């Protein structure tokens, strides 16, 4: 059954409906086959109904002096026929749909488990060895070598997966309901704050045509990128809650795992947490997002950055020291900076003491009142750019 419904070479209709790229797994191809089957069924009945409607409307159009001709007001046999035929087709759809659902939701016992955490508005994937991915890529990237400019959209995390492997997702949200959708796998599941959900899929075997461009070096590498979108509305930046799944050869994957499990310096660990969790709302170049930027600068709303006073909603002001940042992470609504909405969720229980500490080290490094200055200045240069004043674009 699996083979009869799925077609390896997508036909025109299939391309029109699902796009150019072939489905990456058997379960996905099967689901497309089922969709096409239902579509043909629908087209048949639609053409039948509309054909009869148009035919009757023309043939029996009103002519002066010609009455409507009597015909039966009901016909039991006909009515039973057009009840039973569609009903039995529906049973077929139901059963096939149930089969396809099972193949999408259930994965083999030995499948690799990837933990997915959704929070407003970012995804984090944790690998079996505890590593998380620090790599990101933008939705769009334009490099203009002549003028030495690079135009890039927002950065989204890249989750590497080895080819030809069964993967099982175990997902949980830290705040509201999200949904993890991989359109190419034709599957999504809600990501809910108080329980695990998940689904499984098998990564494809890479073909020579499967390549991506390395962000820094511009090299063409073997691999296949797939978008992940949040499909359950979750607020302000719902439409910017994306990620990339990158299917790579096993050895590339193994190398990434080895690299990522190396212990990072506090400031690098802070940068990593910022990229994964905080960057959606807090920039480090003075740009105003949902929350204030972290670097030191001055504008109409007051002074910003570590070591500077924060003007609060209630008119008072408070010094931004390590304790201020700690409180803002654990109990964000305790002090609201003037001009900003109380939109931040608490990270109590999500970030360890070490994580918080590392984040504060990173925030400190962004300020010209950095108490650690001189010891890690190089890192700070790399992490955030040193734009002078905040430009509220």
């Amino acid at each position: 059954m699996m083979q009869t419904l799925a077609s390896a070479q997508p036909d025109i209709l299939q391309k029109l409906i699902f796009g150019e790229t072939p489905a990456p797994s058997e379960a996905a191809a099967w689901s497309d086959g089922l969709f096409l089957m239902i579509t043909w069924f629908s087209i048949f009945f639609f053409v039948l109904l509309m054909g009869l409607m148009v035919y009757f409307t023309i043939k029996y159009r009103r002519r002066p002096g010609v009455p409507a001709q009597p015909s039966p007001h009901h016909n039991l046999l006909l009515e039973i026929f057009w009840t039973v035929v569609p009903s039995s087709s529906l049973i077929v759809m139901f059963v096939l749909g149930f089969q396809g659902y099972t193949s999408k939701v259930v994965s083999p016992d030995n499948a690799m488990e990837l933990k997915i955490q959704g929070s407003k508005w970012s995804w984090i994937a944790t690998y079996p060895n505890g590593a998380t991915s620090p790599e990101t890529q933008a939705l769009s990237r334009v490099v203009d070598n002549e003028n030495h400019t690079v135009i890039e959209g927002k950065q989204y995390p890249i989750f590497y997966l080895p080819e030809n492997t069964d993967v099982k997702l175990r997902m949980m949200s830290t705040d509201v309901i999200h949904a993890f959708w991989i359109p190419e796998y034709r599957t999504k599941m809600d990501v809910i704050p108080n329980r695990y959900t998940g689904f499984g899929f098998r990564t494809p075997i890479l073909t020579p045509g499967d390549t991506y461009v390395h962000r820094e070096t511009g090299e063409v590498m073997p691999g296949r990128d797939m978008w992940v979108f949040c499909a359950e509305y979750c607020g302000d930046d719902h439409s910017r809650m994306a990620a990339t799944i990158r299917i790579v050869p096993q050895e590339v994957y193994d190398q990434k795992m080895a690299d990522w499990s190396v212990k990072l310096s506090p400031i690098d660990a802070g940068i990593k947490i910022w990229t994964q969790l905080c960057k959606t709302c807090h920039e480090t170049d003075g740009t105003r997002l949902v929350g204030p930027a972290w670097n030191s600068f001055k504008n109409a709303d007051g002074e910003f950055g570590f070591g500077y006073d924060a003007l609060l909603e209630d008119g008072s002001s408070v010094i931004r020291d390590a304790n201020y940042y700690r409180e803002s992470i654990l109990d964000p609504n305790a002090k609201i900076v003037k001009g900003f909405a109380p939109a931040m969720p608490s990270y109590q229980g999500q970030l360890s003491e070490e994580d918080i500490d590392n984040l504060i080290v990173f925030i400190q490094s962004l300020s010209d009142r950095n108490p650690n200055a001189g010891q890690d200045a190089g890192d700070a240069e790399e992490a955030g750019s040193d734009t002078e004043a905040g430009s509220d674009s």
Partner: protein
Amino acid sequence: MSTLEANAGHHHDEGSYFDGPPGMMARIWQWSTTVDHKKIGVMYLVAVLFMFFLGGMAAIGVRYELLDPIRTQTTEFVNAAGDIETVTVTTGESLKELMGGMFGEGVSGSQIYNRVFTLHGAIMVFMFIIPAIPAALGNFLLPIMLGAKDVAFPRLNLLSWYIYVVGCLFGVLSILLGGVDTGWTFYTPYSTTTDADHWRVVLMVMAAFILGFSSILTGLNFVVTVHKLRAPGMGWFDMPLMIWALYATAIIQVLATPVVGITLLLLIFERVMHIGIFDPSLGGDPVLYQHFFWFYSHPVVYVMILPGMGIISEVIAVNARKHIFGYRAIAFSSLGIAGVSFLVWGHHIFTAMGELAAILFSGLTFLVAIPTAIKMFNWVATLYKGSIVINTAMTYGLMFLFTFSIGGLTGLPLATLATDLHLHDSYYVVAHFHYTMMGGTVIAFMAGLHHWWPKMFGKMYSEKGAMLGAALVFIGFNLTFFTQFFLGTQGMPRRYANYVDEFQTLHQISSAGSLILLVGFLVHLFVFVQSLLSGDKAPANPWGGLTLEWETESPPIEHNFHKEPILKHGPYDFETTVPPHWDPKDYPLPENAGKH
């Protein structure tokens, strides 16, 4: 089309329901204290059309924003001094540029988009489409079609209208205070935590809560009216199918609406008093809300569509001069849909429930497709051997068969579990429910409005102008929403202001369609206003209908009928009966009639 208008209504001992005392204030007082179901129906019509306009403008706003994705881009370049500089620019915030001031300082383009699509959904669902047919057309027609003077509880009927208006005022107040960004479904825990320092969300939820009472009271009124006030001689199976549809609708309204009322109240409790019901951080369960919500909101999609199906049954039968095919099948399928509609709420939550529940709800969902399919076959079969005239109402009736078929058939991959996992919460779903709700209910509403307009206001409208409007609506509607099926299957999620580049062309086609749709409705508005100002006087029975509303004048007298009507023929006996107010020589009857 000549009629016996000259003979009809010449014993005018009372004027039309439209006549009133002289003086502006006296008339306003008369209308605002009226218990006449016709006046209340007209007041509903005015109110829902205003809400349709507001919701429609929000829809245009949504389509305007989606012409361009909202993009925040960083440009990295080497400046004159040789240093690397970065500049971050956000583009495509069309709504913010157009009307950012309305939403206050520091609100981003995405936030504005979220509020605008929420307003579109909340207004269209709670304030337009639920009351549109039952409360506006239903109120006007139900008693007259039954041969009654009024509904069973006329004062309660007026109260429903005032409750509706108060509900709408809450909604509008919430909008004026800046609007809400919860989505019309108010999913928890987002809805209980967003905008924590504002009352806007509570106001909008209160609006939906209050509107529920209006719906319940109207439903109650209709159930009792149908049971108790049918004209002498009118048995259950002599009722027009419009009445069957309104009856099934009323039952759903009475049974399901209290559930959403309680749910919304719990949501307010959680939000205001922090009682943990749905928010896990307070010990609640977020999916519980979805179960409660859809236990109402799934049946309520049949509150939206069933009356539309009733209109289609009337419009097709009258304009084809045929007895409706399979009267009992249509009547019972209305009740069947009403019954099964209570068992399928889970298909809105396929991606958040266990496997067993998902399989169960998938099976039950297929059940609801069957009565709908039966109706489609019956309507097409009614056309067979008819004498079909294509006027505006009939055009909309046939258009309904076209768009609603697409709406129904595209529901099949959503009921099928394997394919739903892909299509759930994608643009495919958006397209599907617009084909059922707009292609179904709104198109049927337009059919009904044109069919009964002469009866309601006593004026004819320009058939040419209305046909032009209908053509524009048809083209615009399909252009807007058919493209969205492809957006969905290719991976475009719902409620996205920011999307990947490959979707832009389809979004732009869709937006262009929405503009044509807008022009179509403006043409209709123009035609209706022109009809009210300078339309020809409508005859009592312009289309040759056999239901009781065509026996009285256009517009009806205050008490509907001069004396209590006695039913002498069925609602669809076109083969054997010359319609009231018609001359037999203008209405040829078939020679071999009455055999069936």
